[in-house]
């Protein structure tokens, strides 16, 4: 790693490209690097980055860990010890398939893939690129537009590992797939995982992505690409628990075909700066898209949540509920774009963003952005910002509930409808315990 004032990743990239990769992949990575170089890191002058300052990235260099990408397990025993530790906290249910990535590289020792139905593929991108590159070429090359996103371009420049989940036509994946991304060591590691989730016609799956780390100065730059064929269903959960100090940037792109159903459950707790972009293209009729999110920054954390729902075809429904709970000097950003194209008649789109401010110094910037080009549609959006209700606190206390528990209960109650949208019991329990923050009282809560 060569630390320059402005890290251009040119040298790291050159080292990275020396492996034996197919020509198209070498070319794709080069295009990624070129786009990254051309775009540069976003500054606050850009409308989409007004509230989120990533200028610290221009002053410090990260190590993209470009060695031994294809060599399988490359983590040191130290890193594995740290990772096992983290994994304990991340673990949800032993019955789930689990793919663990350490600093962006798959780790077989810590992973556990159960038997699957025929035709189902649960694998790593590194493996696919070595053995069956043709199967991932199209999705890597064409489905993500990195021309105006520096971080997507950076991820593409270093694309090499991540998870692949393929569910063929008519198959319901019997167990959820848990993808665990761990950053270890005290170095300034940069991981660029790229996940591909493809559900065939009428197929169904549950996927969970967890992000955690040990050091306090690493950078996760993740991309997940989802394609849902006709009538396919996916519940996608993201549990962002990065270490404070870390930078977490991620993009999830979803391409939905007719009658498919996509439900996103986004939970953001960690990192110093966490920016999550979720882009859904509703490219077929009778599609249902649900985006639920909960972000809870404290201290000096900044959480920037961006969603984009593109209604391209008629008769589709989208429901969006994002809630923020902000304490101390935390900042939150919610930007929800909804496009309703000319053809998208009979669209029903609902968006709601609610923020709870627990301190006078916390701020939230909300921007719903609806662009509607069809005339026969129902689109509603609402945003509220409030504080904990004094009356409710008083009522609880007047029944004997101590003030701190009363606060915790009200915070839980505020967040609860987002949590209850999660159908997987182990994930819901995990979230309840995070929200109750040590108070062991979840049994009867509604």
């Amino acid at each position, binding site marked *: 790693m060569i630390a320059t004032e402005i890290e251009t990743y040119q040298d790291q990239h050159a080292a990275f490209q020396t492996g034996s990769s197919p020509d198209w992949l070498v070319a794709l990575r080069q295009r990624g690097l070129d786009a990254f170089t051309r775009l540069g890191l976003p500054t606050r002058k850009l409308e989409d980055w007004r509230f989120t300052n990533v200028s610290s990235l221009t002053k410090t260099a990260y190590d993209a860990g470009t060695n031994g990408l294809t060599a399988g397990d490359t983590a040191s025993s130290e890193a594995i010890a740290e990772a096992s530790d983290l994994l304990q906290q991340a673990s949800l249910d032993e019955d789930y398939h689990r793919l663990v990535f350490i600093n962006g590289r798959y780790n077989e020792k810590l992973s556990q893939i159960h038997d699957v139905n025929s035709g189902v593929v649960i694998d790593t991108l590194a493996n696919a690129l070595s053995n069956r590159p043709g199967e991932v070429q199209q999705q890597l090359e064409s489905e993500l537009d990195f021309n105006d996103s520096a971080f997507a371009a950076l991820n593409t420049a270093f694309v090499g590992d991540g998870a692949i989940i393929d569910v063929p036509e008519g198959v319901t994946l019997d167990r959820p797939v848990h993808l665990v991304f761990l950053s270890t060591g005290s170095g300034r590691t940069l991981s660029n995982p790229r996940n591909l989730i493809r559900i065939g016609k009428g197929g169904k799956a549950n996927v969970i992505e967890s992000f955690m780390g040990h050091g306090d100065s690493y950078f996760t730059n993740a991309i997940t690409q989802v394609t849902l064929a006709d009538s396919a269903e996916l519940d996608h959960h993201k549990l962002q628990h990065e270490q404070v100090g870390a930078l977490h940037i991620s993009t999830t792109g979803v391409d939905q075909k007719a009658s498919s159903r996509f439900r996103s459950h986004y939970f953001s707790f960690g990192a110093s700066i966490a920016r999550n972009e979720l882009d859904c293209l509703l490219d077929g009729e009778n599609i249902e898209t649900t985006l639920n999110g909960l972000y809870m920054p404290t201290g000096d954390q900044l959480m920037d949540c961006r969603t984009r729902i593109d209604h391209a075809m008629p008769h589709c429904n989208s429901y969006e509920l994002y809630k923020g709970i902000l304490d101390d000097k935390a900042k939150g950003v919610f930007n929800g774009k909804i496009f309703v194209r000319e053809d998208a008649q009979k669209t029903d789109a609902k968006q709601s963003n609610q923020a709870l401010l627990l301190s006078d110094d916390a701020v939230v910037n909300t921007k719903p952005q609806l662009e509607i080009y069809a005339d026969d549609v129902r689109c509603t959006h609402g945003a509220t910002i409030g504080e904990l209700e004094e009356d409710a606190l008083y009522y609880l206390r007047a029944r004997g509930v101590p003030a701190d528990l009363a606060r915790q209960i009200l915070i839980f109650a505020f967040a609860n409808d987002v949590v209850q949208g999660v159908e997987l019991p182990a994930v819901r329990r995990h979230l309840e315990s995070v929200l109750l923050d040590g108070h062991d009282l979840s049994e*009867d809560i509604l």
Partner: protein
Amino acid sequence: MLEIKNLHARAEDNEILKGVNLQVRPGEIHAIMGPNGSGKSTLSHIIAGREDYEVTEGEILYNGKDLLDMDIEERAAEGVFLAFQYPVEIAGVSNKYFLRTAMNSVRKYHDEAPIKRKEFLALLKENLEKLGMDKVMMDRSVNEDFSGGEKKRNEILQMAMLQPTLAVLDETDSGLDIDALKIVADGVNALRSPERATIVVTHYQRLLDYIVPDHVHVLAGGKIVRSGDKSLAFELEEKGYGFLQEEAVAT
């Protein structure tokens, strides 16, 4: 049990209580009556500990302890219960959870183990039946989408579950039909014991047919202007509050 001495209180720039004196002994039922805006709810909330009011003079002793020095939850744990005139809605918290958390908080305060789930559910069922409440209400959010009458019953349910030493019922009768009134009164009377006391705040004499008070007080203009036995309630019913307000202004 409860001694209120020369209590003066205000909210914002509004002098509401101007020297209230009241003594409640164990086993007694007191009724506080008075016109709208006379400070009945203010007095009730000050007993429960609401922080919107500033006590500028006087004191309240509860079992010999300085009540005003205690936190809201500490008062509740020590047995003070206020049935709210306007019960609060809490979206996202089920009644069942609310009740159980309240009971367990009080138990914890007294270093007792939490109530067992089965025991709690049995007790809840018994009280719901007594109060003629549907158990599905317990899975709904606290007071959310409850009718006025349902909210009032819910307050009595909480009281029945928590078994307070001193219960203050602030206009629990308002908005109740006669059947509901009887049920609520039964709930209050069931708690009657030589160790407990109740203060019934009401606007009308009606409730006092079912909860028979030992003492009746009239609060007007921020003071207790008359005290007597239950016949005072009938007198008020006949004459209205007008003459008392004149007395209050004169003193």
